[in-house]
């Protein structure tokens, strides 16, 4: 039955995407480990880490698209779930440093030592076990999302109001984690990791391993998401997006549906964060910043809201552009990026994947006039 359900997700588009991921999962290790450093096909650890980062963001975008594209919940706070997952992983990696910290303290991370904490805060216990951390990666964002969503959806907070309080949520978390008294390393966050599951975190092989893990996670996430979308539940979700009250009159408790998608999405974001941290080597509060949530929204919009593949594509493209421009035109890249967003929203409201459809009925003005009286749907 589960298989039946999963098979739902495997349409043609999924086939293509999974093929690409499979290709990456094979090609990258070969190019990174199997080629001579000076060969034209060699991938440096830098590139591997970069691709890994993009795919983590892709998973985040996927999670976001699930709630925004299919349920119409515009979350400006998904960075919160992403970062919480990241911290859970970061705490594990921190504990793995053990006595190799600069002060050689076997238990306490360095930042606690020099701000002379005496013993480990209770919430740091257990994170020396990978399995525990792994559970927390999903549980913490999930629990937060569930609690938040439970209240918000029951009291029917919708549209902009919902978006803004999600922003408030992540903003509050950012301020909280900036506080050194919280015991998460304050502004410096968690860094200087040594090893994960016993593997040297800086070794090329480990990086490739992490990359493959990310590819797999993304593939699973994609199949899961597309199966859900294809199921009847998915149809209900879309119905909720388009006409929530009508769905209620059909006897569906829309709150439950939203909560389901919302919590699941948060968990996916958490996993993305957890994979992100060991690959970039640091997690700190500015990841919570509302700006990064908004950026994630933009990836989805660029790729094509409401198309899972689009979300992934958007995340990869935008971030690739960012890495490229910040090096190529460091003074001007913000113009490029900003311009991109404006152009995309103006000329491809359905994103890159919607481009073809868009080309048919050109003239942005048409859509605009038709839609003029401001209604909050779509938000």
């Amino acid at each position: 039955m589960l298989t039946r359900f999963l098979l739902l997700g495997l349409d043609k588009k999924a086939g293509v995407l999974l093929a690409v991921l499979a290709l990456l999962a094979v090609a990258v290790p070969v190019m990174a480990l199997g080629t001579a450093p000076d060969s034209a096909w060699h991938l440096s650890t830098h590139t591997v880490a970069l691709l890994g980062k993009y795919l983590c963001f892709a998973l985040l975008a996927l999670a976001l698209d699930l709630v925004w594209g299919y349920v119409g919940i515009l979350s400006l706070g998904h960075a919160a779930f992403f970062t919480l997952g990241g911290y859970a992983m970061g705490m594990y990696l921190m504990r793995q440093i053990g006595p190799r910290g600069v002060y050689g303290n076997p238990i306490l991370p360095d930042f606690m030592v020099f701000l002379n904490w005496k013993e480990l805060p209770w919430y740091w216990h257990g994170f020396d076990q990978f399995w525990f951390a792994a559970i927390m990666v999903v549980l913490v964002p999930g629990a937060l999302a569930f609690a938040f969503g439970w209240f918000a959806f029951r009291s029917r907070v919708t549209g902009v109001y919902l978006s803004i309080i999600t922003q408030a949520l992540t903003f509050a978390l950012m301020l909280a984690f900036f506080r050194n008294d919280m015991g998460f390393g304050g502004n410096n966050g968690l860094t200087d990791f040594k090893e994960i599951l016993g593997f040297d975190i800086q070794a090329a092989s480990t990086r490739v391993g992490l990359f493959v893990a990310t590819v797999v996670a993304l593939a699973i996430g994609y199949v899961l998401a597309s199966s859900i979308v294809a199921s009847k539940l998915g149809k209900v979700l879309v119905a909720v997006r388009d006409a929530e009250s009508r769905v209620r009159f059909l006897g569906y408790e829309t709150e439950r549906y939203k909560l389901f998608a919302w919590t699941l999405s948060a968990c996916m974001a958490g996993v993305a964060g957890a994979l992100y941290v060991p690959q970039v080597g640091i997690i700190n509060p500015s990841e919570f910043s509302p700006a990064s949530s908004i950026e994630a929204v933009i990836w989805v919009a660029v790729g094509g809201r409401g198309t899972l593949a689009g979300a992934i594509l958007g995340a990869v493209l935008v971030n690739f552009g960012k890495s490229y421009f910040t090096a190529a035109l460091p003074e001007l890249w913000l113009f490029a990026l900003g311009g991109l967003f404006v152009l995309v929203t103006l000329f491809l409201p359905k994103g890159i994947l919607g481009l073809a459809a868009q080309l048919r009925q050109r003239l942005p003005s048409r859509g605009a006039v038709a839609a003029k009286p401001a209604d909050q749907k779509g938000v």
Partner: protein
Amino acid sequence: MHRAFCWLLAAFLALAAPAYAAEMDARLEPLVRGLGAGSYADTEKALAKLAETGDPAAVPVIEALQAGDLHVRKPDGAVVVAKRSGNGYALTDPVTGAPIGEADRNAVEKIKVNNALRRSMSAALGALTLMSPNAGTRWQAAEAVFKSRDANALDALNAALAKETDEGVKRAMTQARASVLLGSSAPDDDKLAAIEVLKDRGDQDALALLNGAASGGSDAVKAAAEKAVAAVENRLALWGAAQNLWYGLSLGSVLLLAAIGLAVTFGVMGVINMAHGEMVMIGAYATFLVQEAFRAWAPGLFDLSILVALPVAFLVSGAVGVVIERSVIRWLYGRPLETLLATWGLSLALQQAVRSLFGPTNREVGAPSWMSGAFQVGGLTITYGRLWIVVFAFLVFAALLVALRKTWFGLSIRAVTQNRNMASAMGIRTARVDALTFGLGSGIAGLAGVALSQIDNVSPNLGQGYIIDSFMVVVFGGVGNLWGTLVGALALGSVNKFLEPYAGAVLGKILVLIFIILFIQRRPRGLFALKGRAVEA
């Protein structure tokens, strides 16, 4: 002002009697020369001697030293007043003020001062100017002595008190005398009297002195001082609450200013305007440019620069707003979300544009004299800058309210936002109204920029600091309801300020955010939600 005037007077008197003056110079000359001796310590000694003479002729010298005009002429080590003229200096005699020729830039060396010197200078001037013909000056002198607690000033103080007629000055002098006595080795009953005087003064400074007294001296004095301290502290505690209220109000009005433009572009038009903060920033930079212009061409009128900046900032930001609306927003009506993305992109670009135009560093926006400093209302310290911002915020709010309620423009805005097609059917040029409305919102943001430039960085990041708070305020108050924005801003402002003393700045802000989240659960459409069927649609 007065002060300078009365130095001229003093100098004039000194000059009026040449013989006397000449004799004076003879006596002062070596002391003045001593000021240039070299180290801070030496200068301080010379200054002390100069002060001891009690000779008003010393005043202009100290004034010059305070102003940093006093230099040592390298060749002969004479101490002179040197003022910039061309690329050299015009020299005058520090005592007589008589011109004594020119000097090349590096032929004179400035006499440096540090905090210690500054203290002794104001003390000395205090002692020396107690007899000044001008009441204001005498009052300042008394205050200076009050702070310096310079025992040498005591005789001068008594003499002055005997002559003093002005009530206010008399009080100031008595208090000064009290502060000196308390510091000195005067007999106890003098000190007890002094304590009473200070208790009546009852402000922070008095508290400082009383605390000092309470920690030393005879038991009788100690006891009295402690009582006085308690009394003063109670008084200040009462004012403390009022002070907090004021802080809340002034923070609230800053939030109001920042949010009110958004209340138009977002609240009325439904555009999730992420570039709002940049409109504020542009307003601030407009202020900077206006001030640069004033600095360049009309330094004398600098105090007016802010007033001129207001319309300029409004127009500049407004114009940028109109351009944005015409070029981008107009295509996106009814798709609030797309407006979020597009305006976010715009805000990135605008920040970078300003960065490349003006550089990434802070730009200096000066405060006009009428906006700097503070005044006391009982135990309440109110800074002029904040006061004007509060006033300004409410003026802007009122103006906007009138504009939307009473003018034809406002009418058509509401018509268009409520029923676009009907409005256009009635011959309202909706496109133009849209552009102007967005322009209005942006312009108001620009006005906010002028005010914020007085209290915050004028840097490309200025807007980012306010955008989130602005959205919180508008949403908390209820989208599309100006009164909601007003109440929201003030409420959040004062909640924040009342939490701060207990929770600290960081935790306070977090608690406010959590409060907003919970509040929205109770009222999903903000404080002043529109009720009834209108909402359901």
